[in-house]
């Protein structure tokens, strides 16, 4: 079981969260009409074997979307930040 460090709630069990997938894909702006851009965003993933930036939704806790750094091979956790703050 993973234990994820929510910046608000502290270190919590994976069971309180739902996984939100790759956080490096950036949702295109509303004005984007190029279908290729949307196809990329919705369907294609880097799927790295190693460090991964990913979304977790603390759905049974503070309900915040977090961006967590996690290694997909070792499951080691790096930082975890609120998604809204880590948006570049």
């Amino acid at each position, binding site marked *: 079981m993973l234990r994820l460090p929510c910046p608000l709630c502290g270190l*919590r*069990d994976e*069971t309180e969260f739902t996984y939100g997938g790759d956080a490096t894909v950036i949702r295109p702006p509303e004005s984007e009409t190029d279908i290729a851009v949307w196809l990329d965003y919705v369907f294609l993933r880097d799927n790295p074997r190693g460090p991964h930036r990913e979304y977790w939704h603390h759905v*049974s806790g*503070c309900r*915040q979307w977090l961006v967590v750094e996690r290694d997909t091979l070792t499951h080691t956790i790096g930082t975890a930040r609120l998604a809204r703050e880590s948006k570049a």
Partner: protein
Amino acid sequence: MLEPRSPITSSLAATSGALSSLRLSERAPGALLQIAGWADFEAASAPALSELGFKGLGDYQEARTSGSAIAYRIAPDRLLLRHGEQEGLLTAARALDPETACCLDLSHARWVFGIEGATAASLLARLVPIDCDPAVFPTGRFAQTAIHHVGVLLDRRSEQQWELLIPVTWAQSLWDYLCEAAGPLGYRLEQAAE
């Protein structure tokens, strides 16, 4: 004034186990109000908070008390306020500027389970994946977590006294679950005492 009807209608044995100091109760939360905002939430919520005697947003995980009001900082831009009187919160709500903050009456959305006694923390260990050791979770703290996959708010009111805010539609199911878990520890059901 109408009282909200308890979602707990199962008739469980009033006690289980002979010698037990564990007391379980269920009751309405009183008034519950969520205040939420955007941008500068600290400033936006200040008028309502000061109406209730709170200063600043407070820390996450800290349950602050002022008179008969409790403030839970549940998210960066959200506070959950609890009060014995509906009126107390309404004045606070009226103090907000709808351009910078909004409020939401959740009084009917939650029910309260009280857990009290020397074995309260043992019962909680059977329900939530939260460390209830007093060194880690002292009185005056709260946690948003899950019981049996349902999101709940757990508030340590004193060394041996805990309250859980439970979404009402799940309350009956979780109450049965909780009582079952408490069975081996032994417990007494109490009338709401407030």
